[in-house]
């Protein structure tokens, strides 16, 4: 068992070393956007058997695979236009989608019905690795069947006996991962979308997510920002958030900020907006008239690279007119289901 610690500079080396091991049918412990995972070449029967044996996984239980993009996904599972539309909401992100397999990976990974779970993570190290490898790799959590997943290499290794350790060829150590739950598993093979496992972010149906607590709303904020913020876009990003008092708008924005490394976001109601570098957090709760909106000087902020988030943005109809043509707009609506639970709808 070899160890490599991931740092800012050794991405290339990690990709190269991991691919060498995968090509030889080896088993790699690898970090992800959720928990530590176990990677083997999804087309290599011996490697998959080794993985199943390591995990003590009962036969017949399917194992998902990582792919780097939609293009590769379409080679391995059937994606019709309706599903493609849905998938665009979910990738990249902490979701595993189950689709009809095209039977090009090791059959042990598929379910008895011939379906396959695929996942495009929001984790550049994996998408890069799988892209260079040019074939899917397994995406199962690095733990023995029935045990909890691991957020650090140390806790995983401590769980393993000597015989198990011998299975592992390479460990990529990225330190302690944030405590994100394993991915949400969504079955798209039937007419009605079914959630088989709840992760951090729960997908309800097209454009719609369910948050069961403020932490999950924050995670969804991170997810939405990562998904819709394209640093290469020539236009600024404007996010309009509609939701009743106490729906969790600021919690969502705090999540967005966290994704950008901004940790000190608080409610801007008292002063209408706060700026954090190129991230502007508005609260239009107090704004009643169009004149006031004009006086905020929003036009001046509509520059490439800026992100403008508006709580209560729907209150002033003119805001949309102001942003239209000048910004990429994401519209989010938060609905109250009960004390803790919220429905969150994202529209472009």
């Amino acid at each position: 068992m070899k160890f490599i610690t991931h740092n800012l500079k050794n991405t290339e080396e990690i990709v190269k070393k991991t691919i060498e091991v995968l090509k030889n049918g080896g088993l790699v412990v690898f970090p992800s956007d959720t928990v530590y995972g176990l990677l083997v070449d999804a087309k290599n029967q011996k490697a998959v058997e080794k993985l199943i044996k390591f995990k003590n996984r009962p036969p017949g239980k399917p194992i998902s695979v990582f792919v780097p993009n939609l293009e590769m996904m379409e080679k391995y599972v059937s994606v019709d236009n309706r599903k493609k539309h849905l998938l665009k909401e979910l990738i990249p992100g902490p979701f595993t989608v189950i689709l009809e397999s095209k039977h090009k990976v090791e059959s042990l990974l598929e379910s008895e019905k011939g379906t396959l779970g695929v996942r495009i993570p929001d984790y550049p190290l994996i998408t890069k690795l799988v892209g260079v490898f040019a074939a899917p790799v397994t995406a199962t959590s690095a733990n023995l069947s029935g045990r909890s997943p691991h957020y650090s290499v140390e806790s995983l290794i401590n769980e393993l006996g000597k015989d198990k350790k011998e299975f592992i060829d390479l460990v990529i150590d990225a330190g302690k991962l944030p405590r994100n739950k394993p991915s949400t598993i969504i079955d798209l093979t039937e007419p009605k979308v079914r959630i088989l496992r709840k992760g951090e972010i729960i997908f309800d149906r097209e454009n719609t997510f369910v948050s069961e607590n403020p932490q999950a709303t924050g995670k969804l904020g991170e997810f939405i920002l990562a998904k819709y913020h394209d640093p290469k876009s020539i236009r600024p990003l404007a996010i309009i958030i509609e939701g009743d008092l106490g729906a969790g708008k600021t919690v969502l924005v705090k999540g967005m900020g966290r994704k950008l490394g901004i940790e000190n976001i608080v409610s801007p109601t008292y002063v209408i907006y706060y700026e954090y570098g190129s991230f502007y957090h508005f609260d239009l709760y107090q704004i009643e008239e169009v004149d006031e909106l004009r006086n905020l000087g929003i036009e001046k902020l509509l520059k490439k690279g800026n992100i403008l988030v508006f709580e209560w943005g729907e209150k002033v109809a003119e805001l949309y007119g102001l942003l239209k043509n000048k910004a990429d707009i994401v519209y989010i609506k938060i609905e109250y289901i009960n004390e803790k639970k919220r429905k969150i709808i994202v529209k472009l």
Partner: protein
Amino acid sequence: MKILAIETSCDETAVAVVEGRRVLSNVIYSQVLIHKKWGGVVPSLAKRAHEEKIDYVISEATKKFPLEELDAVAVTQGPGLAVALEVGIKRAKELADKYDKKLISINHLEGHLYSPFVQNSRGSPAIEFEFPYLGLVISGGHTEIVRFKNHLDYEVIGSTIDDAAGEAIDKAAKLLGLGYPGGPVMETLAKQGKNKDSFNFPRPMLHSRDLNFSFSGLKTSFYYFLKKNPPKNASEIRQLASSFQEAVFDTIIKKTEKAIIITGINRLIIGGGVSANLYLRKKLRDLVKKHNGKVLFPSFKYLTGDNAAMIGVVASYKANEGIYVEDRQSLDRIPRMSL
């Protein structure tokens, strides 16, 4: 050493001349009437009002103390409203250049922490510093617990993670149809309601191990409570105001007590607009009594709100240490400045 201090972080255009801790002149142009109809501070209006009034306020404050005879210019750099801070900073730079004075930049929160030590022109009150203190800044825009170790030496040990305490009270007042600013009217109604806690609204994060505050959950639960049970008469409004205020103050008191226990510091300094609330003052006095400590409030009522006198007093201590702005041109406002 005489210092001209300018403060335009939010909705007060304020200028003062101070010498050490003594305030020689102090002028505040309050914009509260401008913002009242909007139910909160509107940045563009604040900016315009600051621009319109700042020269007048400066000239009033310097009537007996001509700028030529002063030693330095101090200005609030943040936190606050970006467009409002800009007005004061721009004018401070211009004056410093024109009269060839040194420039001092001040954190608004430092000002609130020094507000109990601000003296009138005759040097009253004459209290001395007894460091360390636990400082609490409680206002519409801030809720912070600070370990105030020595002059100009602070460590924030707790703050709000969402709404400020004063903001939460303002929002509750708005929901009850009481207008803006909500603090004074909530205090009055709560008092009429005998400060009773009839509804026992939630106190978020009261049991968290840290010293941070959260008032967003309280606001949410208040909002949905009102939706289901709209108040039927004035007496019910009083009970609601009283219960809401109690939930906020109870949280402040319990977290402050936790801070006293953790730090072992039993001398408190209270600043910010919410510290004008007499009922909160009573609660804080009871708290320090229990811990054999002391509590200091802003020495004069005008010092609870935003003002330039407290900015000037901090500037005096900075000047004593020789801390001036080195590169004037690059001095910029920091809207989310922390201590």
